[in-house]
């Protein structure tokens, strides 16, 4: 007798634990592949999975076996022209003396292919953002939230009629009625039994007085039961809600970039990758995220993404113009009470000499209070100029809110990004 069972509805990811184990074991390889991918991939498709290649030698499970050498012996099918005693020259080069003749050479070649597999987009991003945490996110949640949400918090006996819980109230009422009328109903039952007994036993010769008295009793008891209130204020139960501070799930990211003549397309591309990383990172931490692009030379302008990265301008550089514009946009559109605000600025370090100090003051006195975090990256192979030194002061002044790094080429972006957003065990430490 055979049993036929439909297993298709059973879980199909029986191997997922083993898969996780595998990923864990080869973490180093995967991390390296991800790092390379972040640096090499075109920006627009950072948000997808990745092919991971692990050299066969690292993944090989060793076993005792026969190696090459000695006297091998094998039987093959499909003989065409060989006769006993034929001597066939071995193929020269590569597979010198491969254990057992032609058949095996092919197999060995295949065996040395690298092990290749795919990780999903989520896994990819997990590796990208591994060990990174958004600075001060927690702090914002705890301290400065101004939004609340209502959360169900059980049942209470006082409340407004609109929150009446009917099922619970009726259940209580029913229980109360049972209890309150319990004694009367017992007596009623007894009286009715007695009346019945009286009618049965006396067969026509009825004690009318007794009967009348019993009827009276029954009537009284019934009235008493009737009088038990159907619904009492004791019974009423209300749903209870508590107000809970709701962490803001909205974030806005300001991308500020210098587009003056000194910025080459390559520098902009580096900046772009940095912004993209930041965007992906925020995207994973907030439900809703908006991006504001501000570019500037001597004056600042809010622009579209396309224009931000690809249009060219010439002229001098006044950084404070961009900061002023950002401040204005925050005040108009993004109240710090309900938005998590991040700013990332990229520049090659050029600035109008007098302007750097204005920038510092502007950030220190006003902007920094509204922000979660301000990052500044300077993309230049040259020495630092006044802007860097001005910002350096800011960094030591607000180590938790302000951070800056120096990038020379594309390969630096990812390490610097990780560095900037490294999960900070001691938030007060200067990075």
């Amino acid at each position, binding site marked *: 007798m*055979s049993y036929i069972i439909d297993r*298709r509805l059973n879980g199909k990811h029986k*191997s997922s634990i083993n898969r996780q184990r*595998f990923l864990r074991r080869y973490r180093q390889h995967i991390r390296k592949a991800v790092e390379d991918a972040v640096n090499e991939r075109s920006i627009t498709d950072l948000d997808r999975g990745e092919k991971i290649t692990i050299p066969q030698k690292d993944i090989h499970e060793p076993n005792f076996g026969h190696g090459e050498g*000695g006297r091998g012996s094998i*039987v093959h099918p*499909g*003989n065409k022209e060989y006769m006993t005693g*034929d001597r066939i020259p071995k193929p020269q080069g590569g597979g010198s003396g491969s254990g057992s003749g032609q058949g095996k050479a092919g197999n060995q070649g295949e065996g040395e292919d690298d092990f290749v597999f795919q990780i999903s987009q989520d896994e990819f991003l997990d590796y990208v953002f591994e060990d990174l945490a958004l600075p001060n996110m927690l702090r914002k949640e705890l301290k400065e939230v101004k939004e609340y949400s209502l959360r169900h918090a059980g049942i209470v006996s006082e409340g407004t009629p609109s929150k009446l819980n009917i099922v619970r109230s009726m259940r209580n009422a029913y229980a109360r009625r049972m209890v309150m009328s319990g004694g009367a109903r017992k007596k009623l039952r007894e009286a009715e039994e007695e009346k019945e007994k009286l009618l049965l036993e006396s067969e026509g010769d009825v004690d009318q007085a007794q009967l009348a008295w019993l009827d009276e009793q029954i009537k009284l008891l019934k009235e008493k039961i009737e009088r038990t209130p159907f619904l009492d204020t004791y019974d009423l139960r209300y749903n209870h809600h508590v107000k809970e501070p709701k962490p803001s799930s909205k974030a806005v990211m300001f991308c500020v970039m210098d587009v003056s003549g000194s910025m080459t397309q390559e520098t902009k591309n580096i900046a772009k990758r940095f912004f993209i990383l930041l965007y992906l990172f925020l995207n994973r931490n907030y439900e809703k995220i908006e991006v504001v692009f501000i570019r500037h030379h001597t004056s600042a302008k809010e622009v579209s993404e396309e224009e931000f990265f690809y249009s060219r301008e010439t002229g001098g550089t006044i950084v404070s113009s961009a900061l002023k514009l950002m401040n204005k946009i925050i005040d108009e559109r993004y109240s710090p009470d309900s938005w998590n605000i991040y700013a990332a600025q990229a520049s090659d370090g050029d600035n109008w000499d007098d302007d750097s100090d204005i920038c510092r003051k502007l950030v220190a006195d006003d902007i920094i209070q509204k922000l979660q975090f301000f990052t500044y990256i300077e993309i230049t192979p040259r020495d630092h100029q006044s802007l860097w030194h001005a910002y350096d002061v800011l960094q030591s002044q607000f180590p938790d809110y302000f951070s800056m790094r120096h990038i020379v080429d594309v390969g630096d972006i990812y390490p610097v990004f990780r560095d900037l957003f490294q999960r900070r065990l001691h938030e007060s430490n200067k990075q």
Partner: protein
Amino acid sequence: MSRTSNSTATSTADRKKEGFLSQGPDWSFDLIQQYDEEIGAIAADFGLDTYPNQIEIISSEQMMDAYASVGMPLGYNHWSYGKQFLEVEQNYKRGRMGLAYEIVINSSPCIAYLMEENNMMMQALVIAHACYGHNSFFKGNYLFKTWTDATAIIDYLVFAKKYVQQCEEKYGIEEVELTLDSCHALMNFGVDRYKRPIPLSIQEEKARQDEREKALQQQVNDLWRTIPNFGKSGDAKHKERIFPEEPQENLLYFLEKNAPLLKPWQRELIRIVRKMAQYFYPQRQTQVMNEGWASFWHYTLMNELYNRGKVNEGFILEFLQSHTNVVYQPEFDSPYYSGVNPYALGFAIYTDIKRMCENPTDEDRHWFPDIAGADWLKTLDFAMRNFKDESFILQFLSPKVMRDFRFFGIENDVLDPFVEVKEIHNEDGFQRLRQRLAQQYNLSYREPNIQVQRVNIDGDRSVVLRHVMDNDRPLNKDTVEVMRHFRRLWGFDVRLESWNAEGQVQTYACGNEES
């Protein structure tokens, strides 16, 4: 069973013309049941003795899962299974390979997987192949009878999975993984080839496990006792202790029982891997026989289904096409060649035994006087029960099959710039060609012979393994790495010596590299 099959056959007869079980490619649970009953009835007529069947319908993803866990319905967690899964998944996604359309598990009831994507013909083919072919082989072959207990394996797997999981909770995933890695490296050397094993049973296993943990540690401590035994050692004469008294072929067993530093749970893990190795041991030795047997019977049962008028011409033609693919043997110079196809060879041998019984030629009478003209069912049954690949080929490979495959044997000496054709499929060559092919399926030829030779019990506790070379073939490049695993379990230095007929030729050493 026959009654129900008759009634279903008549009840569906008015719907389906001419008494065919089905029309069209689609399967349904009812149809699978009807086919199974029909095929089962035919199998019973041929005298196939099987475990009860449990047929499970699964999706292709589930098939990949099953594939990755060496076909077992459940196993303990280990990264290497994850690796296998990724490999299968990647190949499948790229269309490099189709999935195996059947997996069957040597258990009672015998579990066979059918993939939902297959059509009715394929389902019937798999039922015939797995549920009656493999199943009867599992039940009948002496190796499976000796080495595995089909009724207990699923319970044992449950036990093993739980035990490994508990160890992971107690001692950390990392620790457990290290131990399992080392066990896996030595897995093929975890079997007693010459001793008969005790069948593994779950009740026993559970009851004795705790006891074993304590007793084991005690026993190990005795071996490693460094305090002199006061009662007897009064004579103060130092008698050199030799350990092990005889070389040990089962490396894992040796480690489980004697490694000085292992914790009880590590010994239990070794035991689990050892038991798994034992369970798979018969399968490794009966590829040709097992697949050949299943192929022979799916061919016979399906054709009988057709002869009895249960399926139509389209069905049987489609079947024949699939069957031909299964038993196809590419020639050695074909790009698709990857060794002798066990399905093809096994199928050819069984078919030829039947032919020799029914229509013997003079050649057959000369080579197989016992078989020629005998009862084919009995002969086949005998051939299935009492052999493993090596002896099966030695006994039953006929000159006709060697000619059909056009087998030729070559030898390859590493010092010789030529390979030499030693024999071909002619009168002179048959005998030796058969031996050469049989040897290819001999596990002790395929795997090196490595045994535990000596332990320095009174000194540094180092252990010496001895590799006895076969035809001067050296060990492969993994050797030192495997020794490292051996060392991890043993806890002290390990040396491996390769010996050929003249004496010791090579030594591999593995000292304390990791602490």
